[in-house]
């Protein structure tokens, strides 16, 4: 090992982070699809040749570390020594290390003087990868084959020669081949930038010094993470929560059970007792559970620890085979976001009694996904999606935040004016759902109430909610937040209650009224201060009585 001084080490760390950011910037800038440009659903990473993350730039935590199993698979299938200049690797199969089919990973060896010294990788959520429904996230899928094209680990480019066979096959199987290629090219551009800049750094500092820096940086983040985990009292901490249902069997709740063991600076999450894999698409392959666990670890450790593979070394997962968190093929997996959010909440929930000042009460943790599809009066078709948050959990020193994205996701809602300009739909109300925050010394954040009216045509509504049956729990004596609910008021009369997941048709004059969940409260309600109570009344955030 070449000795490395602390100043050069920090300079190199800044460079690695800078390179990952430049890759991400290139990826977002050059991508075509709105889901990347506006949803920021893409990430860029530098990896060591031992598949450890050196630097990562992400905009949404659900991408945290999800590339790790992909890189492991790549290097198993294509050993390092076999990789050369001009090579590019690609895959998306959730059952070989991927996440869900729209997330396609591309990786490039970083070559320095003829030798692979690292890997540059980029993952993008593609707008469509084929399958039974446009957008490749069919809520009614019952097997992965319906969700799109499965790509095994392949060489996308071999020694500079593009794999035209693969590209021709893909173009034939996705709904928007030009957008697909546009986003793929952005991934290639991001990897190219990363590989070029890291090669320059190796040239300037020498490859041996760089390798020493890699191991030193990983070791240091590991050391700091272990120290932070040691500050948590050793023990076994359990928690359970539920998903409402799998979209197929609407009356069956899905149990998520975690036992978090903290011992001597290591953290192990065991999911023994979690529900078996489900028929609907809410199954979550191991990369998703890993993202949830790593998010929790980053949230409870010092934010100043540089995020790299070292942070993940002390974290272990026990995922029973055939369960919701480690399904067997061909179980469908496309809607696993809701599952990852709930798993994150469970791991944090397990630790909330032992870390009462660092972890808040449970958050609503509901990201309601709505989609309206139909025809405008001029005959053109529209599909608009709306993503609606819920309230966050209260913490030991303040109320939860009303209507905010929490944990693994971070998505924007659709402005009312944008929706109405685009589709024959009118929004009559968008406001905080009064009284929805869990009571407590500190109150849980409020969910919202939103009411839509269909103005013209037949509109297909897809509703994917959570927290209709199981509320966000309070902490330290705080009360649970309000449940989510939704109903359709038919213009012809009558009201239909939506059971968490539904696909149905709406007609002109029909109204959809939704309420998202509130966050849990913190501390006994009797402890709430007089000022806070009078604020509650003045603001109307708590309903009287």
């Amino acid at each position, binding site marked *: 090992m070449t000795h490395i001084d602390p100043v050069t080490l920090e300079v190199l760390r800044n460079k690695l982070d800078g390179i990952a950011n430049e890759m991400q910037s290139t990826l977002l*800038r050059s991508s075509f699809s709105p889901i990347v440009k506006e949803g920021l659903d893409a990430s860029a990473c530098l990896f060591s040749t031992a598949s450890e993350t050196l630097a990562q730039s992400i905009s949404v935590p659900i991408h945290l570390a999800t590339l790790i199993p992909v890189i492991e698979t790549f290097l198993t299938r294509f050993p390092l020594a076999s990789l050369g200049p001009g090579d590019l690797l690609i895959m998306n199969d959730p059952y070989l290390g991927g996440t869900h089919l729209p997330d396609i990973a591309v990786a490039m060896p970083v070559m320095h003087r003829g030798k692979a010294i690292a890997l540059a990788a980029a993952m993008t959520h593609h707008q469509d990868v084929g399958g039974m429904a446009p957008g490749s996230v069919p809520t009614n899928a019952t097997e992965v084959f319906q969700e799109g094209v499965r790509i095994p680990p392949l060489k996308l480019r071999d020694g500079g020669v593009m794999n035209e066979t693969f590209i021709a096959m893909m173009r034939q199987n996705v709904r928007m081949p030009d957008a697909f290629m546009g986003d793929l090219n952005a991934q290639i551009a991001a990897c190219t930038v990363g590989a070029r800049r890291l090669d320059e750094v190796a040239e300037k500092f020498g490859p041996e010094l760089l390798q020493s820096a890699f191991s030193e940086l990983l070791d240091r983040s590991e050391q700091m993470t272990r120290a932070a985990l040691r500050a948590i009292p050793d023990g076994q901490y359990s928690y359970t929560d539920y998903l409402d249902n799998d979209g197929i069997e609407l009356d069956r709740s899905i149990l998520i059970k975690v036992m978090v063991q903290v011992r001597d600076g290591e953290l192990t999450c065991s999911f023994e007792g979690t529900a078996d894999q489900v028929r609907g698409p809410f199954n979550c392959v191991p990369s998703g559970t890993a993202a949830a666990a790593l998010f929790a670890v980053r949230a409870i450790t010092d934010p100043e620890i540089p995020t790299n593979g070292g942070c993940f070394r002390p974290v272990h997962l026990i995922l029973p085979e055939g369960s919701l968190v480690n399904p067997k093929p061909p179980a469908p997996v496309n809607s696993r976001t809701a599952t990852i959010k709930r798993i994150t909440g469970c791991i944090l929930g397990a630790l909330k009694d032992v870390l009462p000042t660092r972890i808040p009460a449970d958050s609503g943790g509901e990201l309601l996904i709505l989609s309206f599809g139909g025809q405008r009066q001029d005959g053109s078709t529209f599909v608009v999606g709306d993503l609606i948050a819920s309230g966050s959990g209260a913490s030991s020193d303040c109320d939860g935040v009303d209507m905010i994205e929490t944990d693994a996701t971070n998505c924007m809602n659709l402005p009312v004016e944008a929706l109405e300009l685009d589709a024959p739909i009118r929004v009559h109300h968008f406001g905080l759902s009064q009284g929805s925050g869990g009571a407590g010394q500190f109150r849980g954040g409020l969910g919202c109430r939103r009411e839509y009216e269909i103005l013209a045509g037949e509109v297909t509504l897809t509703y994917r909610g959570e927290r209709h049956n199981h509320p966000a729990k309070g902490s330290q004596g705080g009360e649970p937040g309000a449940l989510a609910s939704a109903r359709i008021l038919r213009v012809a009369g009558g009201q239909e209650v939506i059971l968490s997941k539904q696909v149905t048709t709406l007609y002109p004059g029909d109204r959809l009224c939704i309420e998202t969940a509130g966050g849990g409260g913190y501390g006994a309600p009797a402890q709430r201060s007089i000022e806070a109570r009078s604020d509650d009344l003045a603001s109307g955030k708590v309903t009287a009585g």
Partner: protein
Amino acid sequence: MPPSATFWADMSIEIGVDIGGTFTDVVCRRPGQPTQILKLPTTRDDPGQAVLAAVRRLDEMGALQGGQVSRFVHGTTVATNAVLQRQGARVGLLTTEGFRDVLEIGRQLRRALYEVCLHPETPGFLAPRAFRGEVAERIDAQGAVITPLDEAALVRTADELVALGAQAIAIVFLFAFLNPVHERRAAALLRQRHPDIAVSISSEVDPAFREYERTAVTAFDAYIKPIVDGYLDRLQGGLAQAGVAAPLQIMQSRGGLAGAAVARERPVRLFLSGPAAGVMGACNIGARNGVDNLISIDIGGTTCDIALIEQGAPTIRTEGAIDGYPVRVSMIDINPIGAGGGSIAWLDGAGGLRVGPRSAGSEPGPACYGRGGTAATVTDASLLLGYLDPGYFAAGSVALQKDLARAAIGNGVAKPLALTEAEAAQGIHRVLNSQMAEGIRAVSVRQGHDPRGFSLVALGGAGPLHAIALAEELGIRRILVPPHPGVLSAQGLLDATVEHEVTMAFGHALATLAATDLAQAYQGIDNRARSLMAREDLQAETCTVRHYADVCFVGQSHHLDVPVDLAGPDPIGAIYQTFLDTHDRINGHRFEAPARIVNLRTVHRAPEWPASGYSVQPAAGIKIEKAPRAVHLPGHDKAIEVAVLDRAAMTPGQTFLGPAIIEQADATTLLTSGWSALVAPSLTLILDQVRSTGLDEDDPH
């Protein structure tokens, strides 16, 4: 009034005053005389006091004798500070029935990705829920009234908000950007009933779609309006008393000036008043030296502000931020990163050396200020390395104490890392420079540029100290150091001219848009801009008019700012082509999909003030060579004797070779080996890389 030859022949005096966190900078110039520069302590309680003190001081110095102040231009932080210190007015917000919580819900995003104990991310403090009222009214997505305004309810609700203590009212109705009839009627009713309450309406502040962004910027406008109004009122009164007859002009965030009367009506355009002036100063330095493409870096105490100047003009963004909240108003695209002279060096849990983003700021400031700070900062490192003269820092306003710097760096960094103090100090510089270089690269790359095609302009007291290290890191081969880098914002105020921007929502697909309809729409906003100019006594025919449109592909929600030429043979076709080219540059690809216009914008500019007529003569009777001192240069283990040069004595045409330290009252330039410094006719120092050193900052050997 446009400047004329006779105008310049008289003894007209121009004064620019920029207020910063620590210093209020003043530049005073008059034809044929050396430019006067002052730095006064900022008076935080009433920033206007320092402005008036500056006028008194100039008068005492005789700088105003026998002349008349013809321009008084001001860069103000009063709008920004009102927000940062939460000292704005209590705002009552009136919205369409069913939508009073839009301000608080926002777009539901959180900035801190890994936080679990969350805090509000929207500016609900502007108008807490009890101060938000709803009124029955509705305009649909085509701009048609579907529910008439309930005037009785409006008056009743407004009365309640005023009774609760609202000092300003913001009115935001859905789709008011398409049809402002309800907002205007509501404003008229309110002004009649509550003449002392400031009113802001969204269709005037920000006529564009997306209700949260429009609500936030309108509420911010109302929040700062009484504050800005009172401040400018007092300042104008004070200036009149001091005998300054010139109208007070204020710098706006997009780099143009506005008369105080107009600025008071549109206060939300003042958030970047000071920093924008610095970038305008950098543009002017580029123009005077024939350099078009520049990256300006303004290194202050806590941040480094980065801005790109392309073909002589700063990059403008149509949506900015204040204190992390969105404010949708045009501003120069200035990107702050958390690195500056006050950045603190610290050790992380594994003993790694880290620098920033925490800063010692100006209070207590770096350890060497002797004001009680003990943390090692970048300025302490600069002092220890010999780059700074302890007796000649910030125009001598602070005497630096080297022993305190040595103790801070010794205890905080050197001893724990087993380094010498000089190694530790050099390490702090290398780490900070690597962060700033990555920040500059990120800003350029995001806008589709390679920094190697640009020159650096080094601003701020510390800019010229770090500029060469940054340039080497970024592959930039030329650096401009302005005559007075430490007061370039104040200088930039005098380089700017009056400018007014008016926008309107205009949702039309390019494919079906008639050029005559487009021209007619522009005519509407041009008339409004002309009337603003008329209020500044500027004739329409002397102003240049530029048209822009926000354009996006159909189905996209992020748009690009595209210049529009109505006089061309096919204006619509040209908009489309320019849009595709811009899209290609910024996003890296082009494809011929249908596009549409979202907003129109017109920008009217008064004529430039001629830069000539001012003496750039150096002060006479000073020796260039000061006493050399021992300096630890980058890449050298040992301190070496380095020439110290006095910038005030330099004359155009002189060239100096590194290593050398160039000192002036407001900044220090570190000229390292491999670089030359040429004094340009404008007295700008032009630093050029004459050869690769082979020994640059990050070489570990």
